[in-house]
């Protein structure tokens, strides 16, 4: 049975259902229970934005608060994953990866290869990403390109509650390390979500809107900007297809190729900084693989090559807007 659920509650439900199903699933993070050792309410926080609230009451000590030591506890989650558990570790903001990145890219990501296929590391690292929260340069980044670059890591970045639930369940069940990126500005966004458990396979993009004139590729919050742009352009008779990548690694380029083969036009939208971004990655693959299908120069719409500014006026200019996306579409249509 489906009912409307927010992205945040969908994440909570996915964790709840997997913990119920599989006793080897545990979860850890800073204040994900909240109040450990403190005199007041146990389970006081459920994470900094309350995403895991209520899970401690159901699953008890399988949810663990941690000291503020990301390298140690994320490394512990990774180590435990090689020893029979299926841990979920929360890195509060992906922006903090700088203090624990080694455990992610030199350890978890490489075990299987370095050890000749003899290790499995079924760990899921959940982290908030993205801007719009007025949280400034160190709490608003879209660092997806950095983790997508790393072979051995899988990278997920859903755009809605339905995908969030299904992809998180898949992440937990997956036998490879997964970085699960939750856009903090989508937490309140609601769509229909089935109550029962379901997994969405990795590497299957979703066509968020069908169209024939141009292909807009996006992920996370940008899917909404792209769709908004498409709706506005439709009024001018420009019919855009919007592809929601859903997983950045593995990436479903086949769906992108198919779409561009029919539209001949590509616009890649990325909330990340432009250099070596997902937008440039998709653009490069398309031009290398199906160059002759392109009728016009592909367009990249990304954040500028700057840190995320604090001031709301600046941050609103920083994050790619539906208008910028529409302009880029118009540009490709002009030739």
């Amino acid at each position, binding site marked *: 049975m489906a009912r409307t659920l927010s992205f945040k509650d969908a994440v909570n439900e996915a964790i709840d259902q997997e913990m119920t199903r599989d006793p080897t699933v545990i979860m850890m993070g*800073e*204040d994900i229970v*909240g*109040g*450990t*050792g*403190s*005199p*007041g*309410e146990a389970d*006081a*926080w459920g994470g*900094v934005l309350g995403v895991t609230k209520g899970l401690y009451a159901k699953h008890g000590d399988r949810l663990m*608060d941690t*000291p*503020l*030591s990301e*390298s*140690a506890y994320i490394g512990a989650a990774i180590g435990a994953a090689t020893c029979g558990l299926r841990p979920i570790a929360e890195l509060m903001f992906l*922006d*903090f990866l*700088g*203090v624990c990145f080694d455990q992610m890219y030199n350890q978890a990501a490489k075990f299987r290869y370095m050890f000749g296929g003899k290790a499995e590391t079924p760990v899921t690292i959940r982290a908030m990403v993205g801007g719009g*929260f*007025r*949280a*400034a*340069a*160190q*709490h608003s980044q879209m660092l997806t390109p950095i983790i997508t670059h790393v072979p051995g890591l899988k990278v997920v970045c859903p755009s809605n509650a339905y995908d969030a639930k299904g992809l998180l369940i898949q992440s937990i069940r997956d036998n490879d390390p997964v970085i699960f990126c939750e856009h903090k500005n989508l937490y309140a966004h609601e769509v229909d979500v089935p109550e029962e458990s379901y997994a969405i396979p990795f590497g299957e993009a979703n066509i968020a809107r069908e169209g024939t004139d141009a292909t807009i590729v996006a992920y996370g919050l940008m899917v909404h900007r792209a769709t908004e742009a498409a709706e506005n352009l439709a009024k001018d008779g420009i019919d855009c297809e919007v592809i929601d990548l859903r997983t950045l690694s593995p990436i479903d380029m086949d769906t992108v190729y198919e779409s561009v083969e029919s539209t001949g036009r590509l616009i890649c939208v990325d909330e990340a900084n432009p250099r070596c971004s997902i937008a440039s990655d998709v653009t490069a693959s398309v031009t290398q693989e199906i160059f002759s299908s392109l009728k016009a120069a592909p367009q990249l719409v990304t954040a*500028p*090559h*700057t*840190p995320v*500014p*604090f*001031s*709301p*006026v*600046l941050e609103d*200019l*920083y994050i790619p807007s539906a208008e910028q996306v529409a302009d880029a579409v118009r540009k490709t249509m002009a030739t």
Partner: protein
Amino acid sequence: MSKNPFPLSKDDLLIAYRMMKTIREFEERLHVDFGRGEIPGFVHLYAGEEASAVGIMMHLNDQDQIASNHRGHGHCIAKGVDVKEMMAEIYGKVSGSCRGKGGSMHIADLSKGMMGANGILGAGSPLACGAGLAAQKLGHNGIGMSFTGDGASNQGTFLESLNLAAVWNLPVIFVVENNGYAESTSVDWAVAVDSYVDRAAGFGLPGVTVDGTEFFAVYEAAGELIKRAREGGGPSLLECKMIRFFGHFEGDAQTYKAEGENEYNRKHHDCLKIFRAHVTKAGVLSDEELDAIDTQVLALIDAAVEEAISAPLPTADDLTTDVYVSY
């Protein structure tokens, strides 16, 4: 008027009180205005902890550099950053300390020896080592000071810095502002040692613990460690035990605290009240003198808010400037 039993002159006592009061009112006002939805972003208030920042900063000059954390307003004000610019920054205005680009968690003014608030726990400790290293290599007697909370004292960056400072004998002091909580988690649970003196000793550093609600205790302990560092005696750790009057950040329901905890603390452990009691009881400052400062501070904060509200916003041009010196 009776003889001054304190280690500060009357003028300095007035300065210290004014600083503490400025921090307090700055934070109380932000709390109210945040509640009204006027302040964007994450805001971590320093109210209740003023004696630590001011007791320490009274010993420092502009050449001394401090590296602060997410709860940085108090450090900034005590280090001399302009209060009106700070307020404008928090409102995201172009007249702010960082032209509106930094916000509450990133206020800095290197000309005042304030290397920056910091959104990354523990990240300031290596930077403070750098300030101490610069002083050492440039041959002036400035020092570096690192401010972290009890929670951040479990970060690798902080711990590595203790060892580095010791090995290089840097003029750096590591202040651990222990307010009992890291977000909602208790220090008693998360820090696996009973005393920070022992943690410091694990890196060969002297450590001192003081009641951080007692301005004079902080002032004296900090003074000794700072003097030692300036004279080449090397790094040390200072734990200030203190109290956070508000939640972790604005919007925190604080259900992890004990019933009545905040009210009790406000009543019995308010460092400003304690300071006032000491100096008036000793007859060195009068309530009238302090009340006059209160009035001036309130006026300053009012003016800061008004100016911040009416200050111009940054424009599209500001978005892509200030990334590189040259590119």
